[in-house]
């Protein structure tokens, strides 16, 4: 290749301009948020595109451009595969400069990503995953568990069932981290209340669509309560089939993790009377309705559930913290940013005022709902009536029982 005078000149001027470009980037560094969730599988509607919509809504409501912040949101589909999620996260941190990882449903995936975030010292705000291990044995100073967890579900839904006389249980469990943890957490509540576990079936996840075998076994166990330790499309299928086999006549069905999106998929006809727990419902109060009205035009077929609301709330609080620290400072250390997030009071339209505990547990309230009868529902997505509410400081596992390793060491 011959070097012409023109290329030489061009290269020289480009080289001269480079320091200028860098200088500008240093002035207002871009904060990158990476939403990593299931965009195509069984958890697409419970998280998926609506989580991204809610994250972006937080940017809009915070008014990032008016505050001189430079925020970019990217997303990827982890297909509920831990190995895939880990490689995406690494690529995001190493190559794309992502500062905060958001949502990440599916406990096995959420747990796998935890160590990568810690190694790279970034911020990890989880809304979608359930396992209470995330703030227990697998806790991390880079991590906040935003919306709910298996302990809170077990205590709220499970506790209410036991109180209502459901003292013997049969579990139908998705055979991976989340299902097992939910079963373990519920079992401890059932046993503490003097109840017993009559049996359980752990089925392969994902890929099981027919639950009839397990349902018949549950029926044969003569337990009073069928505890569903699964989520998303699996819950929908198991409730549908439980009704088909007349389980609802002999047993009470406890959907330990169920979202408003699942009720929508089942229809009130099949889901009426079920008890379930969420930390957010669009029709709780004026603020939740105002929030829902803002995001609804962007996700008309899938109204926000607690995971989506959690993505909004977490992003908003992160932005507050970034504005408070300054973006350059916030980019430096995930641990410092998360520590600062824990000190600043959390408040937003979705959850009202909450606090973030030392171990990374955001103490949202737990609402126990009952699914309305078709005749009680007045309009689209009018599905729940509130039965009980556990305040955030009582809803979650006490700090001392979590065995989080960094507590008391910092």
């Amino acid at each position, binding site marked *: 290749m011959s070097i012409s005078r023109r290329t030489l000149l061009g290269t020289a001027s480009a080289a001269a301009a480079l320091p200028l470009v860098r200088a500008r980037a240093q002035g207002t560094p871009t904060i990158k948020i990476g939403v990593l969730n299931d965009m195509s599988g069984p958890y697409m509607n419970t998280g998926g595109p609506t989580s991204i919509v809610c994250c972006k809504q937080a940017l809009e409501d915070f008014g990032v451009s008016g505050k001189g912040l430079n925020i970019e949101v990217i997303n990827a589909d982890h297909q509920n595969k831990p190995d895939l999620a880990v490689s995406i996260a690494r690529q995001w941190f190493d190559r794309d400069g992502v500062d905060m990882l958001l949502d990440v449903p599916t406990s096995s995936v959420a747990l796998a990503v935890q160590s990568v975030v810690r190694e790279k010292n970034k911020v990890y705000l989880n809304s979608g995953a359930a396992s209470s291990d995330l703030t227990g044995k697998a806790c991390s100073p880079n991590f906040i568990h935003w919306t709910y967890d298996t302990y809170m579900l077990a205590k709220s839904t499970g506790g209410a069932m036991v109180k209502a006389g459901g003292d013997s249980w049969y579990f139908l469990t998705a055979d991976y981290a989340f299902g097992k943890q939910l079963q373990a957490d519920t079992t401890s509540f059932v046993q503490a209340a003097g109840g017993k576990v009559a049996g359980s079936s*752990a089925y392969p996840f994902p*890929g*099981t669509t027919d639950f009839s075998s397990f349902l*018949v076994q549950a029926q044969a166990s003569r337990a009073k309560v069928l505890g569903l330790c699964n989520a998303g499309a699996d819950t929908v299928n198991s409730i549908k089939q439980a009704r088909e086999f007349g389980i609802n006549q002999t047993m009470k069905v406890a959907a330990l993790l169920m979202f408003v999106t699942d009720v929508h998929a089942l229809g009130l006809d099949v889901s009426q009377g079920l008890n379930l727990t969420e930390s957010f419902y669009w029709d709780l109060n004026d603020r939740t309705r105002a929030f829902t009205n803002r995001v609804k035009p962007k996700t008309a077929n899938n109204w926000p559930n607690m995971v989506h609301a959690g993505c909004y709330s977490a992003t908003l609080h992160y932005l507050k913290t970034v504005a408070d620290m300054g973006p350059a400072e916030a980019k430096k250390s995930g641990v410092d940013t998360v520590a600062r997030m824990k000190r600043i009071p959390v408040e937003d339209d979705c959850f009202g005022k909450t606090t973030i505990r030392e171990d990374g547990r955001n103490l949202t309230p737990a609402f126990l709902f009952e699914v309305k009868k078709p005749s009680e529902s007045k309009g689209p997505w009018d599905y729940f009536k509130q039965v009980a509410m556990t305040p955030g400081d009582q809803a979650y596992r006490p700090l001392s029982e979590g065995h989080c390793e960094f507590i008391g060491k910092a």
Partner: protein
Amino acid sequence: MIMIFGIPGPLLFGQLLLGLINGAFYAMLSMGLAIIFGMLNIINFAHGALFMMGAFASWMLLQYAGIGYFPSLILAPLIIGVFGVILERTIISRLYHLDHLYGLLLTFGLALVIQGLFRNYYGSSGLPYRIPDVLQGATDVGFMFLPNYRAWVVVAAVVVCVATWAIIEKTPLGATLRAATENAPLVQAFGVNVPRVITLTYGGGVALAAFAGVLAAPIYSVNPNMGDNFINTVFAVVVIGGMGSIMGSIVTGFALGVIEGLTKVFYPQASATVVFLVMVIVLLTLPHGLFGRRA
């Protein structure tokens, strides 16, 4: 109470019956695959997506046109069958002169596109579809509580399977079909329009998948991924039964449903794997499958 292998007898019988019901879906789906493979030499990976389309078609008929379950048992397979014919004429027919692998890749791609489109419009958590009123409720058959709808599924599946087998093995139409696969130029010389026969066969196989989809709609969640969960098992069924053997796929479909059902009692965690274990064993001992013709 009678105990069999430490399991109460009634529970075991119940599981056998449930296994047969699941086997009914495997049999219907794998039969369609076997017909398409036997006649067209195409490994139709889009079968799961077409099954899903059948379920969606019946949902749409109800939602947008108010057409109920029983009419849609006929209408949905017709609609999806026509879709299959269009697919075959415009896209798949271009690959007949190439290796199997191309057909497999093409239909796999088609399945991804179809699923993606449905997911885009309807999300993934599924849509509700009620069990028709006449088939609501359940009957106590002594050892278990059998939902009427499930009983209907088995009856419908057996009738459809036997009818299809009879058409292909026992009628002049079936004879033409089989002859066209054996030696297309010769059959063409007798004045039979072979490409049309092939197109209609593909349409028929697709309609079978759609029929299974309509049957599945009230028990499984109607969602874009519903075919995915079946397709792997169904391919294993076809391989175990012997590629292209219709009787093989029917018998194997029901048998594997039962084996899977029993696994769910003894070791549920393995229920997704047991089918493939059987496949490995069968292929090691009988490489052409249980009913396959030796080359």
